[in-house]
Each structure stands twice: as structure tokens, then as C-alpha cells.
């Protein structure tokens, strides 16, 4: 875009030059594709809206809560994750072939994609920046316990850490341990406790703090 002169008055907004360049480069590519009839702009909006507002880790949290409440569902989930997750309506792109990994008092599972950014979209949405970035991708396989510690998760020595590198088209969801003290909670209340990181395996699910007595 060099040689282009702008006389509008937004040149001094916060974004540094690289972002401005990117914004312009992408805008130009988008209009080129739209002008050529290769892309329908309304379809772009629908795609963005889907992953920004409709698909996200709340889906996975419902799967986890149901597995905690319903032992038969848990069994189906561990035996054939794709169909069990589809029972709740979560299907499709980047979640076609799902595997659920159950954390237990003896095994802690965590998921990475060292080669790119493979992640189970229908249940977790699009991955966070750290999951796609070099530090996590490089370190998760060689120093999983160190990485977990930085996430605030200390795994005792007698617990086995299993790291799953999503190098093919299988997509992994961790079924975290149900925390003690949640026996009386309903499925929807349990789902609210389940974090995205717990389903990647870089977090644990915490019981709600007891309400302070007044």
C-alpha cells in the first residue's frame, strides 16, 4: 500500500503502524475478493458471528457437567466422544472426530498442538492466543509440569502427566475431575464452574467458595 496518501484525520490513533498496515492490507484483500464475486460479505458476517457469539467453551462445560451427573453419559462420552457430544448438538468443523480424556487422581491430561493450533471448536470455540503461540506449543511437551505450574496447577509426583499433541484430525477434550463439595449442585450450576482451561488440561475445576456467614 505504499505510495498511498490519506488525507483523513485518523492517522494518529493508538494503533501502531504495523496494525494500520494489516488493517489496510486485509481490507484491500476483502474488497478484491468481494468485487470478484469470490466472497459474499454477508457470509463473512455469519461466520464471524458464529464463532464470536454462538460457539464457545460453555458448550464443553455442559458436556462435562452432564458427564459428572450422569454415569451412563460419562461412559458413552469416554467410549465414543463424537456421538456423545453430538447428543447435545455440538458437532461439525474441527470437532468431527472427538476424544475425551478423563482426569483422575492418578492421571492428569493436557492438550497441545505443537505444529499449529488444532483445537476442538464445537465444544471450546476458537483457541486463545496463548494456545496458538510459540511458548505453549514449544514447552507443553518438554516441560508440562513447569507450564502447568505457571497456570497455577501443581501436579503431585505420584500423578502421571499425559500430554496429547493434536498432530492429526482427532480433537481432544479433557474431562476434569469433579471437585469435592459440589455434591448438592445441579447440572447447570456445575457447568458454571467448568473453565476453558480445565478442559484443555491447564486448569482444575474449583468448588465454589462457601458463602461467608454474616
Amino acid at each position: 500500500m505504499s505510495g498511498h496518501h490519506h488525507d483523513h484525520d485518523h492517522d494518529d490513533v493508538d494503533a501502531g503502524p504495523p496494525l494500520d498496515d494489516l488493517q489496510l492490507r486485509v481490507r484491500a484483500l476483502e474488497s478484491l475478493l468481494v468485487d470478484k464475486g469470490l466472497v459474499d460479505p454477508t457470509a463473512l458476517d455469519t461466520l464471524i458471528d458464529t464463532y464470536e457469539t454462538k460457539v464457545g467453551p460453555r458448550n464443553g462445560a455442559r458436556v462435562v457437567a452432564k458427564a459428572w451427573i450422569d454415569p451412563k453419559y460419562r461412559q458413552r462420552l469416554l467410549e465414543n466422544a463424537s456421538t456423545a457430544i453430538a447428543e447435545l448438538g455440538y458437532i461439525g468443523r474441527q470437532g468431527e472426530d472427538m476424544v475425551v480424556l478423563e482426569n483422575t487422581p492418578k492421571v492428569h491430561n493436557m492438550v497441545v498442538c505443537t505444529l499449529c493450533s488444532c483445537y476442538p471448536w464445537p465444544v471450546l470455540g476458537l483457541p486463545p492466543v496463548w494456545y496458538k503461540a510459540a511458548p505453549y506449543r514449544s514447552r507443553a511437551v518438554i516441560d508440562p509440569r513447569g507450564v502447568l505450574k505457571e497456570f497455577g496447577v501443581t501436579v503431585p509426583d505420584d500423578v502421571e502427566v499425559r500430554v496429547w499433541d493434536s498432530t492429526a484430525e482427532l480433537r481432544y477434550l479433557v474431562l476434569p475431575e469433579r471437585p469435592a463439595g459440589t455434591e448438592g449442585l445441579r447440572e447447570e450450576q456445575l457447568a458454571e464452574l467448568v473453565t476453558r482451561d480445565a478442559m484443555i488440561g491447564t486448569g482444575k475445576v474449583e468448588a465454589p467458595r462457601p458463602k461467608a456467614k454474616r
Partner: protein
Amino acid sequence: MNGVHDMGGMHGLGPVEPEPNEPVFHHDWERKVFALNLATGFIGKWNIDMSRYSRELMPGPEYLRTSYYEHWLYGLELLLVEKGLITVEEMRSKRPAGPAPDGLRVLRPDDVPRRLRAIRAARMDEDVPAKFKAGEGVVARNIHPMGHTRLPRYARGKRGVIDRDHGVFIYPDAHAAGLGKQPQHCYSVRFSARELWGAEASSRDAIYIDLFEPYLDPA
């Protein structure tokens, strides 16, 4: 290819930095790059393995210096030209020199839910005999193909055990090169942390890697 995208086990790439309450996208151009990738991908001129390979072709120093959706943008621009949807001149001038070829399946808003909810992708029904079964020892081949591969460098030459056979899938190495689907068994292979990283690693821990049959020899 032995690119910088193949990061497993590298040191010195900085701390993991989770962002509390992270938005799905940080900039409007990221939204657009994401959606343009999906929308043009659905036209069907390339497959997901070609998409991944196109991002791997970004020169290493640039890949490390840039953010995730810049990798996607790089790969997209490459594929649009390589697969003939945009000419080099159009990419340079950012002005259309003529209409797109007839008969392309352009993604319409009404198609989006159906396309995103398709439940078949890389798994195949082909009856391919499996060379390995769960519990058998294997060694990952020490190969260094110039093209796309999903055998990470840190596993090459290492011994593991078949944890499970996931079934038959499109073989990405061939698919990325335009050589067809060449269905292959894909296995989850368990490598002990010590086999991969030496005596300093935990004796208890393990890395499970999804590997296609052509990557493996009997141990």
C-alpha cells in the same frame, strides 16, 4: 518440512502468557482473516492440509515475528494466487482485472450453518488393513520431508507404543501435495517423557502423538 512451525521441545520462545477474559478476536482485521479463510476454503480449490502447509511456508524469521492470524493471511494470499482465484497482478494492485471463473461454489450466508456442521472431514470408510495394533512397539521414522508432514521433529527416531488405532484418515502429507487422499491408519502413539527428553524428564509422564502409519516402523 523442518520449519519453525514444528516447535515441540524448543527453548527460548518466551513465557506462556494467558490473558484474562480474552476476546475471541483482538482486532477487526483478525475477524476478517478468519472469515475470509473459511469462506474461500469452502470454494473447494484447496484442502485443509494445503492451508496448513501454506502457513508453514512463511519464512521462519517472519513466522516467529508475526501473530497467528498474520500466518493465516500469508497462507491465504499464497493459495489464492497459486490456485488461480486471484492473479499476481490483482494481488499487487488489489483491483479486480476481471470476474471470477464461472461455476465456483461461493459461500452464501444460508450455507454457513450446514457447512460448519458437516460431521465428515478427514475420516474415511476405506477398508485399509492396519499394520499395528494397540500395545505394539513402534519407532517413528527418522525422515525429513521437504513438504507438509504431521510427524513432529521431536518424535523422529524415538520409540513408542501404540495406544490406540483411531481408524482410517486422509493422509495429510499426500493431500497437502495434491496427491489425493491416500487413506492411512492413524494411531495414538505413547512415548515416555524420558524416551523423548532424556533422563532429566519425569519417569512417570508421557506424550501421546497422533501418527499416520507411514511414519512408523515396528520397534
